């Protein structure tokens, strides 16, 4: 194993060029000139890299602790400590209540039914999702699987290069998340983004505005129509606009809940339980409004039969 690592550190990595060099690859580059000096404590040695590669993306904290015991000042010590902290302080089942809440959503969390559309599931979190503890690094640290070599590839030039590329890619991805979205190179005319309050941390609870509801006219059926044409006219000018307004309101309410669901799903991917709970609370609070729009539309749809049942009686003066 050591000889294979040494080979990786001298030949292939140099061929790979500087552009693709990452921390792990750098560790290999360092080996040739520094191997003798570092052999005493093992830091940066082929053995350390081999050890690190062997634990790869493991979720076994004891492996990272073993690495730290062997290389307390190792190249990957900080990452290993973060990984151990994550694995030790965030039990595997921490997210389970959230999943259970989502799958066992009570009826109250269901969206308003609509006569014309399939039900839309609102953010299904009747019970608050557990917020991560302050000391927790959170499950997303899994992205930090430092040198992602599935199964622990044997140490070879290719494997070492691949491992380095994985860590380098992880760092590149991490840095990319911190770039201003759609940032241009031109200096802004207003306050520089560097000091603008644009961090999603401060706005993650920002909710979409409630949909604007239109007025639904009250439907008062006459005792009788003078003619069938009068009924048709009533249908076209009074009943149909009322139904359309009620349907527009209900559609808007359903769309709002869909929007909340979409945002909720996005935060679910990031395991942002605080934001998820805020969205779920908003969805629950909006249930009453959504139920009202549904009731109005449903009542108007039912009123069609009553409209058709209104008798036609010749009116005085009618020809």
């Amino acid at each position, binding site marked *: 194993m050591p000889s294979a690592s040494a080979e990786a550190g001298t030949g292939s990595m140099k061929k790979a060029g*500087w*552009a693709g*060099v*990452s*921390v792990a*690859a*750098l*560790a290999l*580059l*360092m080996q040739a000139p*520094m191997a003798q000096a570092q052999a005493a404590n093992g*830091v*940066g040695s082929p053995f350390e890299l081999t050890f690190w590669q062997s634990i790869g993306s493991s979720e076994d904290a004891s492996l990272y602790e073993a690495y730290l015991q062997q290389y307390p*000042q190792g*190249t*990957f*010590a*900080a*990452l290993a*400590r*973060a990984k151990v*902290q*994550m694995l030790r302080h965030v039990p595997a089942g921490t997210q389970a209540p959230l999943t259970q809440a989502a799958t066992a959503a009570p009826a109250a969390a269901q969206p308003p039914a609509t006569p014309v559309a399939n039900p839309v599931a609102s953010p299904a979190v009747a019970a608050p999702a557990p917020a*991560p503890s*302050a000391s*927790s*690094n*959170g*499950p*997303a*640290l899994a*992205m*930090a699987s430092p040198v992602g070599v599935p199964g622990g590839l044997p140490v070879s030039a290719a494997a070492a290069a691949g491992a380095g590329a994985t*860590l*380098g890619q992880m*760092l*590149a991805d*991490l*840095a990319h*998340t*911190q*770039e*201003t*979205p759609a*940032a241009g*190179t*031109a*200096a*802004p005319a207003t306050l*520089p*983004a*560097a*000091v*603008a309050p*644009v*961090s*999603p*941390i401060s706005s993650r609870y920002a909710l979409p505005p409630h949909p604007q509801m239109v007025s639904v006219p009250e439907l008062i059926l006459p005792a009788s129509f003078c003619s069938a044409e009068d009924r048709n006219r009533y249908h076209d000018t009074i009943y149909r606009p009322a139904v359309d307004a009620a349907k527009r309101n209900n559609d808007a309410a359903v769309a709002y809940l869909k929007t909340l669901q979409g945002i909720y799903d996005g935060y679910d991917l*990031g*395991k942002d339980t605080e934001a998820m709970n805020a969205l779920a609370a908003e969805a629950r609070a909006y249930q009453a409004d959504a139920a009202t729009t549904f009731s109005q539309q449903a009542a108007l749809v039912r009123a069609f039969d009553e409209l058709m049942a209104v008798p036609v009686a010749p009116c005085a003066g009618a020809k």
Partner: protein
Amino acid sequence: MRGKAVLAALGAVATLSAQTASAQACGADSGTAELVRSGKLIEFETLMMAVSLRCARAGVDLRPVYEGMLSVNAARFNGAHEAVQRLFGTTRGTGYDRYVTQVANRYGGGATDPQKCAMFRAVAATLANPASDPRALPAVADAMIAAPVLRDMLCPAGR
């Protein structure tokens, strides 16, 4: 259609080859390459500064390790700034300020969360270790800053 696709692919390959050659030509001299490396260090420092501020607001204070990273690597960061200042000072007037603003804007509006903060803290802690290998900093900067602003300035498209 298949023939057209092949021709299009060949055209794309030729274009890429030309671009690669152009990029190599622009960064071929050691002076430009060194400036690009300095630009990466400056951007990495700015990135970490913005992250440390955002993370502090998110409840993860990595400023101590960030400051430690700056302290341990002060000579290199200062050297990078001086090199770029010399570039702008002699050829572009007040361009250094504009450059620094562009870099700050690039990372001023990023998104973070406690998990990412923990990762950045691990990176900073690694580089804040006085015993860390001196080549770790440029390697991390190289990995995290793939396309530095300064390279776009020094190597505009077509050169």
